[in-house]
């Protein structure tokens, strides 16, 4: 053991010090999970390995509480529903064939907790993250949407959160040049300490440009490009860092991430040029869990192993430890797999766009992900065990007793306006209420014109953008949810959210093709919340089957609550559903509302 690096926890060292105590509990792992890691590795994990497993096995990355229920979506997909599906659940985002050689990819994702801590940056980086998911499929992002939920409008903290979130969504989207074509704003006291910020991005590509995230081909190079890596979002791992550092300790690690939309805009153009030139074999965005996630997922989906030299990562903060570099959630980064023959051309394109790039390592003929730090091995793991074979929980769930009383309390008990005067007053109160009033104060802060293809946006119920300028082929999207309905009956509430989004898309003149969803719920450790979740998933899966549209991807956000008091402190169960439809010619889209006097008005349906 060399003295210069004595604080470095290498694989060799780990094998020789099985009893060394490790902060697995502080990192959020359960005792049995830590035991499983030791079993997989047949030794104790190194600090860096522990960092990787802990973050990849977290609820956020592993879906350990929701996985068993999410399978329901797959169970209810018929062959007919798969007709337009090029890529389904499991990849960065689903891909839908919209005809004429074009495909679109879309997904909604949450950034709830960060947006409460720092509303502007939390919301901004939420938008940035979902855009990179779409880029990672090979697509050009063409529009964004945002579904927002806040606490009571007259609560003092709402005045802190709302303007920050709205200007953060706008600040990132406007600066990156993506039209915002719709969304929601809802106020309800259950979101007081836990606002919801769900962002959707849609992208388009020709069929042949589809890229998947995998590392294939022994000898191919692994390149990290984009922003430098800093200490962002590694709060939790500092317990590891403080172990490996001497008394002086690591410098302060930021609790929040700051987005750089300019960097991301340049990254988009750079990626598209790389795709067009055929210089990319596989690609992956860096989001939650940063390099841990990108390397293990790429390797796990590939056909070999991977060797990474972590000391080659360009750093913003040179004091970062290997564990921290693996965990950093610095924004605006991507990872690509490139053949040795193409690497020079690849680096020429990144240089043209002033994007920093570093060749970190290569695809190997082994079956392990190996990470080295100045020549010493700090990670040596089967990548699948990190990325895909995480723990799966069968959390207990049960319909809460209180549900009966809730359902028995029907609106029949509410007073009805009895006179014209009362009716008038009721109408005025409704029109002026925070949840029904005009949303122009939000949408006026979002650019809906950029890219020149927006055929419908605010105040219409669906957004419509053109995909192909020659033919005017395009897509319609709507993003909807109703937490109050879902609270009353999660199964029906989820189905109704789908129905609303589906109707909005259909009413614009588009044919609905696919669904994405963001499932925002309280703590999965509460059986009542887990019941809401299970019911909502069932309701959504069945409704999708009924309507013949598949769920192509989405996101689960749990632990949205402000205390430990079960359903009382949880947010309303809030499945937010996005539906995507296709229009052969977006110029034939139907706007909502009537335009001219004398037109007939029909009421359809029941």
């Amino acid at each position, binding site marked *: 053991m060399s003295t210069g690096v004595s604080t470095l926890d290498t694989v060799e060292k780990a094998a020789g010090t099985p009893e060394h105590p490790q902060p697995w509990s502080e990192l959020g792992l359960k005792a049995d999970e830590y035991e499983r890691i030791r079993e997989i590795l047949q030794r104790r994990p190194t600090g860096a390995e522990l960092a990787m497993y802990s973050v990849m096995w977290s609820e956020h990355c592993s879906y350990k509480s929701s996985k068993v229920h999410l399978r329901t979506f797959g169970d209810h997909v018929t062959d007919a529903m798969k007709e337009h599906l090029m890529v389904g659940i499991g990849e960065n985002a689903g891909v839908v064939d919209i005809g004429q050689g074009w495909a679109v990819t879309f997904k909604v994702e949450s950034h709830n907790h960060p947006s409460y801590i720092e509303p502007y940056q939390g919301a901004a980086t939420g938008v940035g993250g979902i855009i990179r998911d779409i880029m990672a499929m090979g697509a050009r992002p063409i529009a964004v949407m945002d579904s927002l939920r806040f606490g009571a409008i007259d609560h003092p903290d709402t005045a802190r959160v709302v303007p920050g979130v709205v*200007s953060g969504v*706008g*600040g990132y989207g*406007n*600066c*990156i*040049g993506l039209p915002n074509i719709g969304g929601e704003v809802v106020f309800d006291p259950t979101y007081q300490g836990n606002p919801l910020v769900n962002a959707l991005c849609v992208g388009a590509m020709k069929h042949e440009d589809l890229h998947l995230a995998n590392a294939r081909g022994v000898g191919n190079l692994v390149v990290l490009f984009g922003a430098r890596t800093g200490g962002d979002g590694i709060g939790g791992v500092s317990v590891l860092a403080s172990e490996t550092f001497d008394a002086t300790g690591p410098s302060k690690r930021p609790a929040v991430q700051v987005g*750089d*939309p*300019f*960097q991301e*805009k*340049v990254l988009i153009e750079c990626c598209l040029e790389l795709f067009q030139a055929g210089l990319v074999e596989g690609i992956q965005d860096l989001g939650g869990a940063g390099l841990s996630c990108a390397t293990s997922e790429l390797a796990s989906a590939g056909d070999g192993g991977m060797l990474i030299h972590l000391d080659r990562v360009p750093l913003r903060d040179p004091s970062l430890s290997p564990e921290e570099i693996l965990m950093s959630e610095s924004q605006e980064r991507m990872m690509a797999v490139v053949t040795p023959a193409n690497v020079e051309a690849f680096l020429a394109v990144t240089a043209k*766009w*002033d994007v920093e790039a570093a060749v970190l390592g290569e695809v190997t003929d082994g079956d392990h992900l190996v990470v080295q730090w100045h020549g010493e091995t700090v990670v040596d793991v089967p990548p699948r065990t990190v990325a895909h074979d995480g723990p799966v929980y069968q959390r207990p769930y049960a319909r809460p007793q209180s549900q009966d009383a809730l359902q028995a309390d029907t609106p029949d008990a509410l007073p009805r306006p009895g006179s014209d005067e009362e009716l008038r007053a009721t109408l005025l109160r409704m029109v002026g209420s925070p949840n029904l009033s005009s949303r122009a104060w939000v*949408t*006026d*802060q*979002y*650019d*809906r*014109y*950029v*890219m*020149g*293809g*927006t*055929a419908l946006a605010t105040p219409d119920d669906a957004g419509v953008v*053109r995909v192909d*300028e020659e033919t005017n082929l395009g897509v319609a999207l709507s993003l909807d949810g109703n937490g109050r309905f879902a609270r009353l009956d999660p199964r029906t509430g989820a189905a109704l959210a789908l129905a609303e989004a589906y109707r909005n898309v259909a009413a614009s003149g588009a044919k609905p093709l696919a669904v994405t969803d963001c499932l925002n719920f309280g703590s999965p450790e509460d059986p009542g919340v887990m019941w809401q979740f299970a019911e909502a998933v069932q309701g959504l899966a069945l409704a999708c089957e009924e309507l013949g549209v598949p769920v192509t991807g989405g996101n689960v956000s749990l632990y949205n609550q402000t205390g430990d008091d079960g359903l009382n402190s949880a947010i309303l169960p809030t499945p937010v559903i996005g539906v995507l439809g296709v229009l052969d010619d*977006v*110029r034939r*889209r139907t706007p909502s509302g009537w335009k001219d006097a004398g037109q007939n008005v029909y009421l359809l349906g029941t």
Partner: protein
Amino acid sequence: MKVGVVTFPGSLDDADARRAVTLAGGEAVALWHADADLKGVDAVVLPGGFSYGDYLRCGAIARFAPVMTEVVRGAEGGLPVLGICNGFQVLCESHLLPGALVRNDHQKFICRDQRLRVETTATVWTSDFTEGQEITVPLKNGEGGFVADEATLDRLEGEGRVVFRYLDVNPNGSLRDIAGISNERGNVVGLMPHPEHAVEELFGPGLDGLGLFTSVLKAGLEAIA
């Protein structure tokens, strides 16, 4: 006639400006910020966006791009140059146009369909309008407040160099409701609203923006004739 559209890192409405040129009947040529080369174009558009993120001051860094040396030289020699939004900011930073654009008085980004009055048709970019014509084009900016000292404002008014003025509402606190101005010769025009987003039916509030592009094409044809 060839109209160049410059792309800086962070330009957003460059493809839209090229589309507008094409729809007006011109040939759009993409120009790259790092090339000190105008590729023989007959006019240049500096498009909207957030060049270099606009983190320092809008347009402050773009002004020093190699292509700008050529644009400034051309403009001084009479080359038609149009700056839209971020392009307007770049023109002010380059001192091709007087004044500056500061943060909107209400502190927020604003996107709206904006009514404007065309105050003069004596520029190469507005000859196809009629004097006093009222048009509607999208506006979208966070730092669109036009400011200059009183003497400069008086001179702009006196010399007929206020090209566009906001109607109905002043969306950003611009002094004297100024939305766009020109240089003395009338070949360089800058404006905050986005005419390139009003060139295609159903993809914007109408076709009022086309006039700027048809104006410069006509001026070009007359120059050849």
